[in-house]
């Protein structure tokens, strides 16, 4: 091998400055490609569920529960319209969190995929960007499916609704990045389950998806405001229905971007630490 080179050629190669061949693909893009090759095997199932899930949600929560809620007349819109954009944002969060939980832990602990990547000329940043890119695509596909289902249910009130899948991606990344850091730190699958039970589930319940956060006791409202999902729900609802978000759009988006940046930095630190054995 070694390009069929003789030992003399190799010596010359050593003394010359490291020859940096032209890369045909960016390292992060190569990582994204790797995840997409794996996704080829399961994409049908995920596309199916991204249509089936919202249909179930809308029939159960929107139509059935909605009939009750709308009788009370406490919302200034049909209940189904109220929850649909929030559920869309939550769907993005859920996929992102799932994909950055066990799969990340497994790539360290069981399949050792990251160790194989680390032996190639990839930087940790490339590995993170590539996999986060994959997760973004997954969220984008699912949220777009969700949005398409919203149309026949009459849950869309504005052309701005086309932006909701992007909101879902932003929320997804805001939770995926710190989740990467968490998954790169823990050793036990049990700790992963705890994060879903006590992180994701409460977030779904108290982030204004099913009822306005103003309904929460006063002390709990700042907690809801601190959670990334609430900001995503506000943005998603504002886009889908052309209503005002609770805070300026830039503040909601900026807050989510902050989670992404801090989460990415933490993930990078934890990855470097776990890989350097």
């Amino acid at each position: 091998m070694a390009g069929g080179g003789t030992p003399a050629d190799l010596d010359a190669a050593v003394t010359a400055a490291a020859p940096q061949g032209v890369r045909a693909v960016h390292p992060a893009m190569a990582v994204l490609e790797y995840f997409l090759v794996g996704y080829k095997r399961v994409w049908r199932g995920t596309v199916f569920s991204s249509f089936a899930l919202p249909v179930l949600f809308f029939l159960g929560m929107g139509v059935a529960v909605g009939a009750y809620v709308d009788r009370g007349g406490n919302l200034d819109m049909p209940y189904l319209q109220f929850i649909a954009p929030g559920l869309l944002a939550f769907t993005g969060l859920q996929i992102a969190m799932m994909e950055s939980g066990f799969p990340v832990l497994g790539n360290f602990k069981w399949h050792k995929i990251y160790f194989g990547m680390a032996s190639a000329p990839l930087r940790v940043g490339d590995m993170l960007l590539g996999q986060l890119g994959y997760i973004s695509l997954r969220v984008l596909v699912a949220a777009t499916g969700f949005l398409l289902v919203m149309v026949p249910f009459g849950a869309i009130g504005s052309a701005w609704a086309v932006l909701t899948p992007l909101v879902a991606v932003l929320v997804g990344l805001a939770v995926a990045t710190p989740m990467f850091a968490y998954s790169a730190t823990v050793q036990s699958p049990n700790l992963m389950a705890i994060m879903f039970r006590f992180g994701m589930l409460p977030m779904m319940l108290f982030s204004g998806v099913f009822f306005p956060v103003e309904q929460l006791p006063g002390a709990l409202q700042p907690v809801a405001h601190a959670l990334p999902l609430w900001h995503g729900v506000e943005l998603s609802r504002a886009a889908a229905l052309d209503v005002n978000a609770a805070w300026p759009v830039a503040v909601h988006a900026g807050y989510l971007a902050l989670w992404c940046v801090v989460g990415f930095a933490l993930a990078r630190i934890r990855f470097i630490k776990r890989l350097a054995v």
Partner: protein
Amino acid sequence: MTDGAPLISARGLIKRFGDFTAVDGIDVDVHAGEAFGFLGPNGAGKSSTMRMIGCVSPPSGGELRVLGMDPQRQGPDIRARLGVCPQEDNLDQELTARENLVTYARYFGIGRKVARQRADELLEFVQLSERAGSKVEPLSGGMKRRLTIARALVNEPDIVMLDEPTTGLDPQARHLVWERLFRLKQRGTTLVLTTHYMDEAEQLCDRLVIMDGGAVAAEGSPRELIERYSTREVVELRFGTDALEPYASKLDGIGARVEVLPDRILLYADDGDTAVPAVYERNLTPSGVLVRRASLEDVFLHLTGRTLVEA
């Protein structure tokens, strides 16, 4: 072959994990075109050394240059020119053999067409062409190891690093791996491997260091090491289930040296065929006698007082 700058050069290289020193100040030079081995028992510091050379584990002290570069600052540039076959296979079990090679080639920035072409050539080289389209998961251990070796060659590396390449494989699978590695050697590929099998080291390595407890105990070609630390031949004597120490003292003077193992006595002599009659002349009647050539196992035993297996 040993002219010119070494591809790998370590001076006083140290790796610590907390209070534990895994690699304790080793000096190593690996030159282009040679097959270089780290021979030693588990825990000798071989894999830690390999990971430092592979630029995935930062050294705790000492100097290390790989391909003339600094692993701390130029890790990706160095790794671009290394091929790494780790001790534990880290292939993607869900992808096919070919997909594993192509996706890995892309990490090196290799174009899609070239990556596919190279994957097919390498599958041919490691005799896995018929399994190119099958998932990795059901492949045998030997096949997975050969696939990992193929993956390590996908960037046409200047140095191929193999950490325990045949550990855990059955004898037939081992021979197939050895044969492939020998082919690489013939092509002039620089190989760096770790092993705790002395037969592997003898077959594949032009030069090796024997490691024990994080330090280099000896360095040289297998032949040099045997000449330096052992006699040419060894007589293995068994005495049923008797205690062996009393016999050992009666063997004094027959050979150069006597080693007592739990199940047998090793009598080191340059000529086994003259040593064996001398044993019987002393009225000793061993239940088993075997004359063999000295091996690296004997070198290790002499240097550390332990066998590679028990160490």
